[in-house]
């Protein structure tokens, strides 16, 4: 295959409606950002799935490695005092 056929990969994020975050929906190939946006509209919003689209070159994303999962995320598991239910408040106080 020639270089012509090897466009870089873009990740696509769609906001389904105002007030919500953009959400990752998939990826596509395009020669530049402008074409990536147009392709994203055709590939990922054929049924009014969104009103705003982001395209990001896949190579620009830095992802955590699955092996790091424990080191990164388990420290939060034993910190129950970060949650409101950790604190004891008598019912009589009412909603707090």
């Amino acid at each position: 295959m020639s270089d012509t056929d090897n466009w870089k990969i873009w990740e696509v994020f769609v906001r389904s409606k105002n007030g919500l975050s953009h959400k990752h929906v998939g990826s596509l190939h395009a020669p530049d950002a402008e074409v990536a946006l147009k392709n994203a509209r055709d590939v990922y919003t054929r049924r009014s799935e969104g009103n705003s689209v982001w395209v990001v070159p896949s190579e620009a994303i830095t992802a955590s490695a699955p092996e790091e999962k424990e080191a990164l995320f388990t420290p939060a598991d034993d910190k129950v005092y970060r949650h409101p239910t950790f604190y004891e408040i008598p019912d009589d106080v009412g909603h707090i």
Partner: protein
Amino acid sequence: METINFEDRFQEYVDSEQKVEPKHWMPEPYRKTLIRQISQHAHSEVVGMLPEANWISRAPSLRRKVALLAKVQDEAGHGLYLYSAAETLGADRSDLVGDLLSGKAKYSSIFNYPTRSWADIGAIGWLVDGAAIANQVMLCRTSYGPYARAMVRICKEESFHQRQGYEIMLSLCRGTKEQKEMAQDALNRWWWPSLMMFGPTDKESTNSAQSMNWKIKRKSNDELRQEFIDKTVPQAEFLGLTIPDEHLELDEKTGHYQFGPIDWEEFYQVLKGNGPCNKERLEARNKAHDDGRWVREAANAFAKKTLERKGENSAA
């Protein structure tokens, strides 16, 4: 200390119904099986556009025409979702497309049958999409995350495909005698190839057991085929059409339909490239790819020029 190898740990992980994501460790055969299956699935969506595109310009009304256009456009989109899913496993898009164009890669044999009349468009939506949906609903629960997510999206979109097909069949069956005969003729020609879409019987299917173990597949070929038949026979009865199988009979005890022998020789012949349209389909795909080259080149040239201009502007 007890050592657990990676394969066992992977199997345990899959057995606990957790999804495998792109960067996770996975056995090489798992990765290879998925790349093969997902890319074949993508190729099927892409080649699947051809038999239907044959009727876009001759659709009997504007309503039918916009529906068929939207359906064919969906198939293109589905192909793209699936190629993207295959890429998350490290496959290269241009290699996958190259294998389709060279004839090395396989796609669903059903698309090597011709669409002779308008009724075939009805039969494809009803039967071929119906069979595809049975398979795809199962794949929404496949163990590989990106594949499962693509399937959820595809299933949502496919349900209109089957309904538009059945509606076409219904219109023909409620029409003139000739129209009903067209519908029956289409059913006669598409019924058996549709049953073959589920693949060889469980006894003959070599890769099935491993795929089931890895939870790539969740139901066997024969289970899915039976499910499809049980669902489709009453739909044919509603249309007033006859399924072309003299052995077809409801087994009151099991609630399932028994059916006659499938001509597997035909299946393997079409798979080998000897179906009615194999050559035509590949030629059409290659022509489309070649004819689109100038568009890709122009897009590249434009992207390059825009980048250069941006450079000049920021330098000035």
